[in-house]
């Protein structure tokens, strides 16, 4: 009976087009990121100044092309680096930032949110005011200021995303914890003598978890965008490493002669974010006990 309930959940998830499409996009990203050294047709940093600004071979192969020369399916940039390879390696950074930043954000935010929602009173007052003040800063500006203070680099970017976005989790988890706490099963658990932390961890948390899964998926999309923004303004990784944001930033300079330099990484980012949002939305619909 219980086993059947679980298979039903999997079947339901696989029947939901949002989950399937989003899941496939994410799976594709994971494959690209993990297999980058084998999938990428060229070294992403290898320059070939003679072959710079080659247009994507997918669109048009010049009739006079040398059949022995390496094909650049998505063209080359101003230094003759292979755009396809750079994008594939960029997926690694995007995914790393997405997973690590979203997980840490969820951890910090939901811990504080759960404490505020469960204990109420002064704990709630302090945490909630902190969130209010925090949210009055424009998030992207805050991230830029933060990174310029703590220095650039991958971990600074992740730290900036966590510091800026924990409030999102805090608010939602606080409200949900409050709602769950008011339900009879929590009173029942109290009446059976369970300690507050035990109730929070083993009674309330499993009821908040579906919401959290959804939020983490959405947060991964946000993290990708924030990383791209920081790369775009040159506050993420050094330009030696390929990131989608950095590629967009560099491509912007040549948008008139080689539009693909900017358009392709933008498309990659949009696909990734749309895929994550679709997955998150689909999961919410399937996991949310109210909608279900």
């Amino acid at each position, binding site marked *: *009976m219980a086993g059947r309930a679980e298979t039903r959940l999997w079947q339901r998830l696989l029947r939901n087009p949002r989950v399937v499409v989003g899941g496939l996009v994410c799976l594709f990203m994971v494959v690209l990121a993990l297999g980058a050294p084998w999938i990428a047709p060229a070294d992403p940093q290898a320059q070939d100044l003679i072959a710079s600004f080659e247009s994507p071979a997918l669109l048009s192969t010049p009739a006079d092309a040398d059949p022995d020369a390496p094909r650049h399916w998505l063209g080359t940039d101003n230094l003759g680096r292979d755009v396809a390879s750079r994008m594939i390696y960029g997926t690694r950074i995007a995914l790393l930032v997405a997973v690590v930043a979203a997980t840490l954000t969820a951890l910090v935010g939901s811990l504080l949110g759960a404490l505020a929602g469960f204990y109420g009173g002064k704990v709630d007052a302090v945490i909630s005011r902190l969130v209010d003040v925090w949210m009055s800063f424009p998030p992207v500006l805050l991230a830029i200021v933060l990174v310029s203070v703590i220095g650039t680099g991958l971990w600074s970017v992740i730290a900036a995303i966590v510091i800026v976005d924990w409030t999102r989790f805090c608010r939602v988890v606080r409200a949900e914890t409050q709602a769950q706490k008011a339900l*009879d*099963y929590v009173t029942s658990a109290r009446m059976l*003598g369970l300690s507050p932390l035990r109730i929070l961890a083993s009674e309330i948390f499993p*009821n908040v*978890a579906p919401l959290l899964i959804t939020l983490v998926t959405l947060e991964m999309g946000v993290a990708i965008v924030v990383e791209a923004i920081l790369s775009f303004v040159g506050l993420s990784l050094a330009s030696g490493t390929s990131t989608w944001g950095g590629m967009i930033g560099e491509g912007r300079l040549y948008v008139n002669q080689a539009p693909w330099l900017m358009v392709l990484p933008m498309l990659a980012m949009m696909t990734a974010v749309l895929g994550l949002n679709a997955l998150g939305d689909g999961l919410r619909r399937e996991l949310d006990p109210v909608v279900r």
Partner: protein
Amino acid sequence: MSDMKGAHGAVPVAAPVLQIDNLHVEVRQAGRVTPILRGVTLSVSAGRIHALVGESGGGKSMVAKAATGLLPESAVTTRGRIVLDSQDVTSWNERRWRTLRGRTVSMVLQDPLTALNPVRRIGAQMADVLYLHQGLRGAAVDAENLRLLEQVQMRDPAQVLRQYPHQLSGGMRQRVVIAMAWACRPRLIICDEPTTALDVTVQKQVLRLIHKLVGEGQGVLMVTHDLGVVAKLCHSMSVIHGGRILESGSVQDVFAQPQHAYTRALLAATPRFDRPGHTLVPVDDGLIEQLDAEARAYDRCQAVLA
């Protein structure tokens, strides 16, 4: 208060597991003070079911909450005392209450649909209690879970343990809730309208079950507005209105010779199948107004005395 004397005569000699004396509770919120309980006195003996009867808003649930330490933070106990299993628990904090809950006192809530955690299996929820209070784990928990479910006459208990609450009917869920409340054989069990949310046919089964379980020697405080339940199941009863106990006594005495006008009115408003042709009379508004006026007068006297 002359009608209170009859109560003590009727209650058996065994030491009470719950004794509430002259309990006054008021709610202080946004600068307003609202008295909720105005001198509640009652006692529940081991092996007996004591009914607390009254209409909604009369303070029934507040008494139940006070006796389990679940009063909201805005509620203040101003006078009186609560003695639970020979311990004065009147001003206990949450931490000390936790040592009693589940072990000495437990509670069956009104709505079995919400009283179980929707995302955890029945077996896991029951295991929590057994581990916490008896240190059981592993196979011992499974065996004890099965025994408890068999005790509440659950069909196919092994399967129920693997199920989630939504896979069970209301009556089955209430059986699980009762099994959990009885798991550690607490001295006192408070049943807060345990049958209100159930079908009539299931109500009867659940009441029969509670009756059977009381044979184990627990005291039960049955909070209800259903005089039919009281007549069938309970040994003694208290009638509460406006936070005051209007009448206490054994169920036979109160049903046969109700002393207070409000008790008479409640009885007249209850269907009686043992008396064909019995017409139902709604409780008179004038009586309620009079009771409310008495309660206000009581508050004024308290304020002057304080």
